[in-house]
């Protein structure tokens, strides 16, 4: 059975969903071995799987079944009870844990399958801070006064999901052009995360910490700091409604009107 952290996006925040799909995940997994194996050997084989692994998605998968590279950040908190092995695994988005368990079984030479799986983290969303369907039911049945308080407690601003995505903060005067689909040019940048490289998914924020758009970097952090012109990021998905910040740039039609 699979349970655990499932980020839900409401109304306009639904547009941010694609960013969740790219975030790293953490699971607690119960693996069942098909024969007895020495504990030392199990530990050693699990450690071998930390780092970059090659994985072919399982037969029943939502994606094309090509071998792909995925990163296992860590495998820790290993507990063993005979043929049952419990462990915590941090991995890149799109890693199939069921397949990982199967492959561990193959390397051990005895075979293994996944008995239970619980997601304990998706990006900045952790198990400790999650709410159950019963909590949400309370929210829907609450009186108006309680409802306000419960909504604030259970619903988080969409910005909270982007804690681990590199940020670029932009000027007020740049916000509207981004909302209308323009690329981000260097003069619009105020602050930025270090470690950005071209093609990396990044998030554009206002100076009030509001999410404006999801973008793809066209420059590294160093270039963005050094350059005084040029395109810094390509806008992929606009999240903020266009009318939130005023439109300050001039258009051809405005110029024509001014002349006549």
């Amino acid at each position, binding site marked *: *059975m699979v349970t*655990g952290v499932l980020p839900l996006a*409401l109304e306009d925040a639904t547009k941010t*969903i694609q960013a969740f799909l790219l975030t790293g995940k953490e699971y607690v997994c119960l693996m069942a071995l098909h024969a007895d194996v020495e504990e030392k050997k199990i530990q050693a084989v699990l450690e071998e799987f930390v780092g970059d692994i090659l994985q072919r998605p399982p037969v029943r998968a939502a994606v094309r079944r090509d071998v792909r590279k995925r990163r296992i950040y860590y495998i820790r908190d290993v507990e063993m009870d005979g043929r049952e092995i419990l462990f915590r695994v941090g991995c890149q988005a799109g890693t199939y844990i069921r397949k990982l368990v199967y492959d561990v079984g193959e390397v051990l030479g005895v075979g293994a399958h996944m008995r239970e799986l619980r997601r304990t983290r998706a990006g900045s969303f952790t198990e400790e801070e999650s*709410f159950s369907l019963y909590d949400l039911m309370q929210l829907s049945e609450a009186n108006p006064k309680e409802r306000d308080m419960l909504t604030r407690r259970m619903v988080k601003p969409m910005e909270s999901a982007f804690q*681990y995505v590199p940020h670029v903060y932009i000027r007020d005067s740049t916000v509207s052009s981004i909302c209308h689909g323009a690329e981000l040019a260097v003069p619009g940048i105020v602050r930025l995360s*270090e470690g950005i490289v071209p093609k990396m998914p990044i998030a554009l924020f206002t100076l009030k910490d509001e999410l404006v758009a999801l973008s793809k970097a066209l420059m590294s952090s160093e270039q963005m700091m050094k350059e005084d012109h040029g395109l810094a990021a390509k806008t992929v998905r606009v999240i903020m409604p266009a009318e939130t910040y005023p439109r300050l740039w001039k258009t051809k039609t405005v110029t024509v009107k001014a002349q006549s």
Partner: protein
Amino acid sequence: MSQRAPWEEQRKLLVKLEEETDPALGCPPTKRPLDQHLRFGLINLDKPSGPSSHEVVAWVKRMLRLKHAGHGGTLETFTRLEQSDGHRRASSSS
């Protein structure tokens, strides 16, 4: 790229410009009025076993009377067929 998980890494912020924001425009995420808070909101749900991610979204949409909602990253459960067959096999988990 580092070997560490994104949540175990610290990213420093670099300052390119000294710039102020006009308090009259927009609204900091934590100060949004309730309707806006819902409109730009996320819920960290602990999905129970049984219903599919898709079904859970549909329930929450109805409970909170939302027009749109979506989930990030399917947490699949047994498919109905597999359940009735009694196979201990999850259909997919990414």
